[in-house]
């Protein structure tokens, strides 16, 4: 076992332990919310998945920039792996958010809300990014064009933020209400859930990058065998 494998296992174990603790805290330990009731318990993992998806897309941007700068395939693999995990967590955030919204606002989705809108744009941009990856042949050309698209896609996030000037606040602002409606136990539960999902993200990211590197090595070996046969 290499050092990286051990680190991956530690990450996943930490994530599993924290997830179970988080589940216990979310369902049994944290008090029921005054106004929203039990529906609010989805909040802990909703915020955690949203945070991880933003982190993952940020890493994709970083990987894309580093790839264009250094031409090192390692960064391309990092960007792609992170985007794929990001889309999964973003989907989870959207679904849990919609369930929560149905309970509290009575509808699944409010189009006027800025945070919901931005998350939707991010989700669509990175789904397009994955479609781009799956429709091109592996190699330097794919790495370059997907890095360019990753950067443009991320660039469009602040731009569409500016374009969407309808600024009506339906979405509960977590940070501002920390002192008020969010009790200490709730904050502790939230922090546990966020750490659990961050470790999960790091664990999956390491496994995924390893897998992609192995895939590439396999391709090279296949090429060599093909050359020998030919």
């Amino acid at each position: 076992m290499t050092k990286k494998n051990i680190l991956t296992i530690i990450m996943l174990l930490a994530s599993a332990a924290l997830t179970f603790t988080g589940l216990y805290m979310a369902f049994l330990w944290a008090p029921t919310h005054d106004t929203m009731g039990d529906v609010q318990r989805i909040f802990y993992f909703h915020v955690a998945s949203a945070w991880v998806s933003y982190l993952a897309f940020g890493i994709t941007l970083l990987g894309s920039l580093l790839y264009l700068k250094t031409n090192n395939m390692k960064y391309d693999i990092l960007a792609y792996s992170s985007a794929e995990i990001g889309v999964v967590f973003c989907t989870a955030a959207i679904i849990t958010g919609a369930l929560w919204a149905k309970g509290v606002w009575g509808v699944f989705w409010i189009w006027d809300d800025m945070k919901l809108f931005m998350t939707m744009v991010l989700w669509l941009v990175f789904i397009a990014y994955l479609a781009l990856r799956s429709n091109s042949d592996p190699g330097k050309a794919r790495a370059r064009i997907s890095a360019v698209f990753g950067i443009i896609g991320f660039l469009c996030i602040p731009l569409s933020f500016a374009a969407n000037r309808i600024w009506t606040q339906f979405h509960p602002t977590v940070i501002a209400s920390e002192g008020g409606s969010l009790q200490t136990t709730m904050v502790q539960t939230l922090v546990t859930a966020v750490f659990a999902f961050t470790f999960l993200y790091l664990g999956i990211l390491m496994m995924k990058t390893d897998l992609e590197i192995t895939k590439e090595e396999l391709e090279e070996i296949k090429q060599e065998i093909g050359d020998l046969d030919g």
Partner: protein
Amino acid sequence: MINSMLILSLMILASFRFIFKFIDFSETELASPILWITFFFSGMFALAPIYQREVEQGTKEGLMLAPISASSIYFGKFLATFIIILGLNLFSTVVFFAFFAQPMPDMVLLLGIIVLGTIGFTALGNLISAISANLSQSQVMLPVLLIPILLFTVIMTSVEATFQIFDGAVLADLSNGIKLILAFDIIFVASGYLMIDYIIEE
């Protein structure tokens, strides 16, 4: 090719015209989305072949060998497509006013927004078209890549500004929207200029 694009614009507007035969919506309120959806889809077909045809006809190598930088190729293609798409959009606008009996808004403002929006659309569309020319199923991939980044930036702002024009806005009301579209134009042209090197290099 331009012929078929003109016919496409005509067809899209005709479909919208027939919707209003059955459903009683306010035409003035929906004028702006109808115009921009027509611009978007007919423009997309104008964007699709820009780089694709170079690949298919094998002229890409010639372009690469020419003693010019990649950004010059980008600007050449940008200008050519801009003129074509602007022509298409003006044609669609004329057909629109023929099909939908609308009170004439401030035409100078409307044309101004159309020109500004088209610059942004073409600038980013060119870059995405260069990307999609490298992909399998490039015909499908162009809209897939284009919609999430274009729709929520330049198209959304243009739709809003056009809506205000049909609502009887004057230049002063639109200054924020115009500034925003101008900013998008500059950013998209700059990003095309900077990034095209990475896409068409071999």
